[in-house]
């Protein structure tokens, strides 16, 4: 009893020291402690996980970030970094005993350098704002996650965000050159270089997708690309999902790498059509959207070739967008698929597995079988070109037991992705959400190596604790879960 009381007192004392320290480093307006002010920071885009942080800080300079980190390191206080909070895996979920460090004030575009095809920006700059600023030079930043209007480049780096153009243009990791990063100890590191290669180990790759576990990103230098002369999109309808899947392989086998290659199944088509009125054929079992870009002549040539392949693959209808407005409309339907599904169901749970493409028929068949078994409809949205599957499980959290069934269904989908040689997350990250699935994806050797990688950057383990990489203990308990089926371990953890 006494021991517990002492601990609480110490805790209170540490909290007081922390707040006092933060207020000595930052203007009071940049330190939030009122629960009202903390509320907007309690979750990211995966709002089923919510937790209030002890305090939110909104530093404005790199020096302030460093000072905050030094203080937190000294007081052994956990720190969670946050961009726009659009993440979909709970990666920015605060620690209840820690600091939530928002990069929202870092909104400046520092330099656009068309001669060297790069731009240097602060981490709180929105993804789309970079392309908008580069447009005057005929250039753009390629990765375009669906949330690009809102999501920030710092968060994109932390999650290694993708988008609909990954097959041709790569993920965030392929499109950045240099980062400035503040460590937990408050040290400022320059990782990568303004040149195409940097000396030493490829720490840039390690930082990209590290989900705020290794350092706080305070500056990002991205690559810019020349905007293609022309982009054109072809829509193809199919009476069978498997045929659509095969058409994807056939396009690639014809030697064409589309800028984007997206697939939607019937439920997703209908939801998107009701929402965006994109002109999708409502009776199709599946549609493919195939975007081709390049020079004017090249695009014409590829469109002819793709139309031919699609027809040969059994498409019931092949349509080329007649103008830019229709092209935008075709994409609007796809990009609004998530909110569209949100309208037809009280809740939905978005999965993010990636599979080798040739397993698509098997995986889709299994998902639809489980859908019947669990009594939960599934809408499938698929980055078909790179095998990234987004099944959206429709459920109603207010119906008793439906949440748990949805979760179990989702777990089985991810397990299946791993079984066929894929992965539990293609672009949304592990965060809080898929921490248990990491135990399926990796053995203890790899997980231990991950913990050691983290320790190389953050020996104190205070950055975003408990996310992205599960402890071996947790995985062992999870293994036990399969034996004592039904009984969930870790009742102390937030679950949904």
């Amino acid at each position, binding site marked *: 009893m006494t021991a517990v009381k002492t601990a609480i007192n110490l805790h209170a004392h540490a909290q007081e020291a922390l707040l006092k320290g933060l207020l000595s480093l930052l203007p009071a307006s940049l330190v939030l402690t009122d629960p009202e002010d903390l509320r907007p920071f309690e979750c990211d885009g995966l709002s089923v996980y919510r937790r209030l942080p002890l305090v939110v800080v909104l530093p404005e300079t790199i020096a302030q970030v460093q000072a905050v980190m030094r203080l937190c390191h000294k007081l052994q206080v956990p720190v969670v970094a946050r961009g726009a909070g659009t993440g979909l895996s709970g990666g920015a979920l605060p620690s209840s005993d820690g600091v939530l460090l928002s990069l929202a004030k870092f909104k400046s575009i520092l330099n656009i350098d068309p001669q060297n095809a790069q731009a240097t920006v602060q981490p709180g700059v929105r993804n789309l704002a970079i392309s908008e600023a580069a447009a005057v030079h005929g250039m753009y930043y390629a990765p375009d996650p669906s949330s690009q209007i809102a999501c920030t480049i710092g968060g994109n780096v932390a999650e290694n965000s993708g988008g609909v153009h990954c097959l041709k243009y790569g993920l965030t990791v392929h499109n950045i050159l240099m980062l400035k990063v503040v460590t937990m100890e408050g040290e400022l590191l320059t990782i990568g270089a303004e040149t195409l290669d940097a000396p030493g180990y490829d720490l840039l790759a390690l930082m990209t997708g590290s989900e705020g576990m290794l350092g706080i990103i305070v500056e990002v230098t991205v690559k810019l690309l020349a905007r293609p002369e022309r982009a054109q999109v072809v829509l193809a309808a199919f009476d069978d999902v498997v045929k659509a899947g095969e058409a994807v392989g056939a396009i690639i086998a014809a030697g064409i790498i589309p800028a984007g290659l997206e697939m939607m199944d019937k439920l997703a088509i209908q939801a998107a059509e009701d929402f965006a009125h994109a002109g999708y054929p409502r009776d199709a079992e599946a549609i493919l959207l195939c975007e081709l870009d*390049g*020079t004017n002549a090249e695009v014409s040539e590829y469109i002819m070739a793709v139309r031919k392949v699609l027809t040969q693959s059994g498409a019931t209808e092949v349509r080329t967008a007649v103008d830019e407005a229709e092209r935008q409309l075709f994409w609007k339907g796809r990009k609004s698929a998530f909110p569209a599904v949100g309208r037809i169901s009280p809740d939905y749970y978005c999965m993010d597995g990636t599979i080798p493409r040739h397993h698509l028929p098997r995986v889709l068949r299994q998902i639809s079988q489980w859908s019947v078994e669990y009594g939960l409809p599934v809408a499938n949205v698929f980055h078909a070109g790179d095998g990234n599957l987004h099944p959206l499980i429709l459920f109603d959290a207010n119906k008793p037991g439906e949440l748990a069934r949805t979760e179990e269904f989702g777990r089985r989908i991810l397990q299946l992705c791993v079984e066929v040689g894929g*992965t539990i997350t293609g672009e949304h990250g592990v965060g809080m959400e898929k921490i248990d699935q*990491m135990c399926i994806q990796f053995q203890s050797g790899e997980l231990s190596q991950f913990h050691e990688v983290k320790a*190389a950057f953050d020996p104190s383990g205070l950055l975003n604790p408990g996310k992205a990489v599960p402890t071996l203990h947790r995985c062992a308990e999870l293994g036990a879960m399969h034996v004592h089926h039904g009984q969930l371990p870790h009742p102390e953890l937030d679950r949904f």
Partner: protein
Amino acid sequence: MADMDRSAALQQQVHNAINAGTALNIRGSNSKHFLGRVADGEVLSLSEHRGMIEYDPRELVLTARAGTPLAEIESALAEASQMLTFEPPHFGEYATLGGTIACGLSGPRRPYAGAARDAVLGCKLINGKGELLSFGGQVMKNVAGYDVSRLMVGAYGTLGVLLEISLKVLPRPASSLTVIHECPQTEAINQMSHLLSQPVPVDAACYHSGHCTIRLAGSEQAVRHAQKQLGGEALEKSAPFWLALREHQLSFFKSSKPLYRVLVKPATPSLPIAGSWLLDWGGAQRWLVSDEPVAVIRDSVAAAGGHVSQFRASAQDEEVFQPLSAALLTIHQRLKNSFDPHRIFNPGRMYSGL
């Protein structure tokens, strides 16, 4: 030589080295022995651990054992009209995939289609505790766990023994054409940099002995159209030129003087260092043959915001790569310790402390 999985034997050799406290010198075909610093140690040969494991052209993914000759991989890809995007230099007839990835070298296409690290999707490796680990995978998009596969690229074998590597591959361009024109270096730098912001299908650009040489690739019409735009003379049978550039077989590279690899931003004006220059990667990678002292070269390149490594060094016992800042070196040492706590893999090959 037959395809063979030597993982178990290699793992045993690593365990033996740990127990005996012997350093291991990881070797494919030894074609890149001249890169980096001298690393002593018992040879751990990967040359028998070879063979393609999986390659389905429709998946755009290839998985092969580290000891597989690069030439074998490239000919399998060519049969399916595909290629390695990063156009790796071989520097030897029997160059292996593992050595290519460990050294992280990329050829002329690199600025336009990505580097070796960009193509890597996953790997299997033995770490310095003798554990067989698997990272990444065979899919394009994968953000589960830290990107250890790419960390291995260019680590010169100091973090682990690569066993298998999965790469993203792409279709060969339907058509390719090289144009050449004579101009001063400054003009070439400006032109190559300007092209970066233009929708022109460039896939290699270099400046050498008064000539700017630009390779176009894409659909037939796109290439023809771009040729009209750029002007210049079409270079007949251009493949041997790009091959000779990639493999350092041009007469420029035959000098007995030290060869430096200088990385700068592509639009960087000519650097004031005495010696002869060849600009590749559209001006972003510049080769320098020079007798100037290393320190003078390093300072001058650093002043231009770049970095330099001694590619064919006169003394492989000194540091040959750009020295790291103290803070970065600390992270490097901690990573080295975490992957190779007994310091048995290529110790000192990259930097003296790693």
